[in-house]
């Protein structure tokens, strides 16, 4: 038995703010508060917030096959640096995660790393081809927790219908990347005034809204649990709200970038801002932010999508879609939405902890005794500059480079072990 104490911890979980106390961990679980007694390790967190580690339902970790962009070590290392204790990895790797052997292999690899807990998603269709379903039952048995062709919309509505039906029977969540391909065409940014000004092919909001509508109808028809990934637009979210109001089995996530960046960022022609779905207008950003406050968004998913520097230095038609953000998600959202934005800290935390857990049907993490000692220590006071060269992720580029943010995770514990500690260098 090994006991650890986090002294002078400001304890917060979804039940509320528990004030300053000493939090005791025993092996891989929380033991209790202010227990006293002998400990192997004492860590004074000096009044910093201690709260359950975050859960990301949407990260591209690129292994297997795309290790030049990211691998399990760098991706899960980046995750713990961002305060995440659990990560759902997307299946659009090379090969695609569409068979149980790959799931097993990824799980054993990640266990050995001892960083964040990996919860792999499996592909909905073999090879993400949108034609034939994968073996959901076997994939679930191997440890896959979600079914998704993320990166690609499911073009064939019939395939999605059968996927939702089959997943429902097995208790799996189906996640969709909802963009109607015919409307999206070859768009590389939001279609609108800015895309016309920049002469770049546009991807209209209608592509997202129409496909969310179709996907939600299919969910209602099939009774399957549908999770709509990365809702980027006002109209897209309004569709989700409309279905939710009718009791559809639908949840939705938004990303840190859609909550903080608009399409005007592309005026500088930097592919670091090229992402799918695209960054929308100020109005959309405002609507998504208000939706967080109104409680109609279930979770924040990062859609962490690392690419190499060289790929992001190609032209805007050729450069790949994606923003690497898992390490800055909390400080970014804390600084822009809580410190300067009118969102309650407890709401933001819930969108990163309880929200994702409820989407998946998992137990909501708390600081109660016997619960997993997956924790993050947050420094809400010190401003630190976003410095991509220090990222654990292999993607050393960021839309927020140089911005001074507060709320950085300074320590992360997974299974009671400290898996990340930030060097104390403030500027």
């Amino acid at each position, binding site marked *: 038995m090994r006991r650890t104490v986090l002294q002078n911890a400001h304890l917060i979980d979804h039940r509320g703010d528990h004030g300053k106390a000493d939090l005791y961990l025993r092996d891989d679980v929380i033991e209790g508060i202010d227990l006293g007694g002998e400990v192997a390790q004492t860590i004074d967190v000096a009044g910093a917030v201690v709260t359950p580690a975050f859960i990301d339902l949407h990260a591209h970790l690129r292994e297997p096959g795309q290790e030049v962009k990211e691998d399990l070590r760098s991706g899960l290392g980046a995750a713990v640096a961002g305060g995440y204790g659990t990560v759902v990895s997307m299946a659009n790797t090379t090969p695609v995660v569409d068979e149980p052997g790959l799931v097993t292999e990824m799980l054993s690899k990640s266990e050995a790393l001892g960083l964040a807990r990996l919860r792999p998603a499996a592909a909905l269709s073999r090879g993400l081809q949108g034609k034939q379903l994968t073996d959901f039952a076997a994939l679930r048995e191997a440890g896959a927790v979600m079914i998704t062709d993320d990166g690609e919309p499911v073009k064939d509505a019939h395939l999605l219908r059968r996927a939702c039906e089959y997943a429902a029977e097995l208790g799996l969540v189906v996640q969709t990347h909802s963009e109607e391909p015919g409307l999206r065409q070859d768009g590389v940014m939001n279609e609108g005034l800015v895309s016309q000004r920049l002469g770049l092919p546009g991807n209209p909001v209608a592509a997202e809204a129409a496909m969310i509508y179709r996907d939600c109808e299919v969910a209602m028809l099939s009774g399957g649990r549908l999770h709509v990934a990365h809702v980027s637009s006002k109209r897209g979210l309004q569709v989700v709200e409309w279905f939710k109001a009718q009791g559809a089995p639908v949840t939705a996530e938004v990303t840190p970038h859609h909550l903080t960046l608009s399409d005007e960022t592309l005026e500088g022609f930097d592919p670091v801002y090229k992402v799918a779905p695209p960054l929308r207008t100020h109005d959309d950003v*405002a609507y998504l932010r208000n939706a967080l406050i109104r409680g109609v968004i279930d979770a924040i998913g990062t859609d962490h999508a690392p690419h190499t520097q060289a790929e992001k230095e190609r032209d805007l038609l050729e450069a790949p879609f994606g923003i690497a953000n898992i390490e800055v998600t909390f400080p970014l959202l804390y600084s822009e939405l809580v410190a300067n934005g009118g969102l309650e800290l407890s709401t933001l935390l819930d969108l990163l902890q309880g929200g994702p857990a409820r989407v998946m049907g998992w137990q909501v993490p708390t600081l109660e005794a016997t619960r997993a000692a997956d924790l993050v220590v947050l420094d809400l006071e010190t401003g630190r500059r976003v410095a991509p060269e220090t990222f654990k992720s292999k993607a050393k580029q960021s*839309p927020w480079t140089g911005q001074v943010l507060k709320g950085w995770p300074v320590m992360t514990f997974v299974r009671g072990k400290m898996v990340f500690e930030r060097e104390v260098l403030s500027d």
Partner: protein
Amino acid sequence: MTPAITPTVPERASTQGKKQHLLDLQEWSAEEVWALFETTDVMAQVMTRTIKKVPALQGFTVGTLFFENSTRTRLSFERAARAQSADVISFATGGSSMSKGESLKDTLRTIDALKADLYVVRHQAAGVPYQLTRWTDAAIVNAGDGRRAHPTQALLDTYTFRECSPGFDGFEGKKLTIVGDIAHSRVARSNLRLWTKLGAQVTLCGPSTLLPHELEQFPGVTRCFRLEEAVEGAHAVMALRLQLERMQKGLLPSLAEYQARYRLTPEVMALADAQALVMHPGPMNRDVEIDGELADSERSVVERQVANGVPVRMAVLYTLLVGRQ
């Protein structure tokens, strides 16, 4: 409770003060454009001499980087550089390393080792000339990027209007019309920016599938689907080349329908100002977007547009290379 909205907007890749690049025309003031036209007048005079060469850019090296094919524009720039005694190095891709996934930056760095003072860049993706300014100290001239901009074409079109318009007295109060595939046209985008900057009213005309409604939010711009209305009272009408693959992409029902509705004819031009000019940036699809006879008529300044390409580009190279010393 509405949270403050402060989405991050990066610094634009624009230049302030002395012009270092010609990326697009919104960064150039009307005064700078008029000054450039005075330089163009001098260059045009050079091109009438027996020996069409001056030593103005001796010792400078101009690189032409054409990632997308365009023999005409490239030749025009190379002629403009050589006529001022600059050295010219040319780089054109066509299945070279770029298509094998080499990054834009690496390609530029490789070429930059050849030490040109100015690069003329043509690329199929909007924004590439801006991206290149981050990785080289050389001046960049945009020779066409995607659908975005083709500033030297707009300058030569505008110079041609100034030259050929009888009793030219500026652009204030002028109605200038562009007809055709506006959506995919960098020529249209650059011209509407420049013409509205100089005080003209710009009317864009074409089928709605090729005429994005957002362009109406640009100051000084009107959108119009009827050719007769667009041409009525116009002081110049420019027809754009219709890319024949637009039919396959479902943007147009048929060539015949387009010709019936939007082909510029002598009959339609009768509705324009009595001294209106007919323009075309080339290459022309005769009898598709413009009546063949009209293209050869007295109203047509198509040949002047081509001829003015060299002196305008001479003036651009001179202004950027000598002007920044």
